[in-house]
């Protein structure tokens, strides 16, 4: 049996890498990938807790999280696609039409 703290630590490390990616990278698709990485880190801790608590709810939750992540990826990428048509760049600093 793998010690639960080690898996949770791995999940925390992956989540932090995702946060760093969102804050440091400027390519909007890479920022999106970092968000997927954070979602996966949370999924990992869901599975860990579900296993250590002898519960099935965490696994069911992951099913829904993955569906929502797929929907989010589809809609987000189509938004990026349509922004790219007008601005011709993927740099998130250029996407500032809505900025006050």
């Amino acid at each position, binding site marked *: 049996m793998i010690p*639960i*703290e*080690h*898996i*949770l*630590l*791995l999940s*925390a*490390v*992956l*989540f*932090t*890498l995702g*946060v*760093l*990616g969102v*804050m*440091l990278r*400027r*390519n909007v*698709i*890479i920022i999106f*990938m970092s968000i*997927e*990485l954070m979602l*996966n880190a949370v*999924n*990992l801790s869901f*599975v*860990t*807790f*579900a*296993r250590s*608590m*002898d*519960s*099935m*709810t965490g*696994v*069911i939750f*992951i*099913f*829904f999280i*993955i*569906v929502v*992540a797929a*929907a*989010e*990826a*589809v*809609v987000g*990428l*189509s938004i*990026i*696609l349509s922004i*790219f*048509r007008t601005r*011709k*760049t993927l740099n998130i*600093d250029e996407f500032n039409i809505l900025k006050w």
Partner: protein
Amino acid sequence: MLIIFYIFAALSVLGGLGVLLLRNPIHCALSLVGTFFCLGAIYVMLNAEFVAVIQVLVYAGAIMVLFLFVLMLLSSKDSEKYANKWPIGKILAGLLSLGIFVQIASLFNASELQLGPKGEYPLEVVEEVGSIALIGRLLFTDYILAFEIIAILLLVAVIGAVVIAKRRFQ
């Protein structure tokens, strides 16, 4: 068993670092696929075979292929010249994420980790019935409403993506 877990954990952290550090966005996407595969292997070790399968099929298969398609459609020439113009921002980002990491990791201190009462699906029951059969049974009984709603959400996402991404007629 434990050593295999450490190998996969190290590989998945390496993949995450690749997303953070690699210059070419395509390489970033491929290293993220590697991370997803390693996480799938860890799910197998945690006796969550169903999650491992949909992790590889949906995440590493469908979602990342979508990312790669979009990356290849939108090959912008200035791809990675956009460095952060503001060096203090990098330091602030590092400090902030260090703070987040310390906060999360301090929650996982084993001696203080307070878990509630155990659920009704210990490992023997899961092995006997099979995890996929259990999940299917739960999805179509206890969670049937959420299951139906998520189906509508997927339909809305598909229609929304088509509407947002199509070209407007002049």
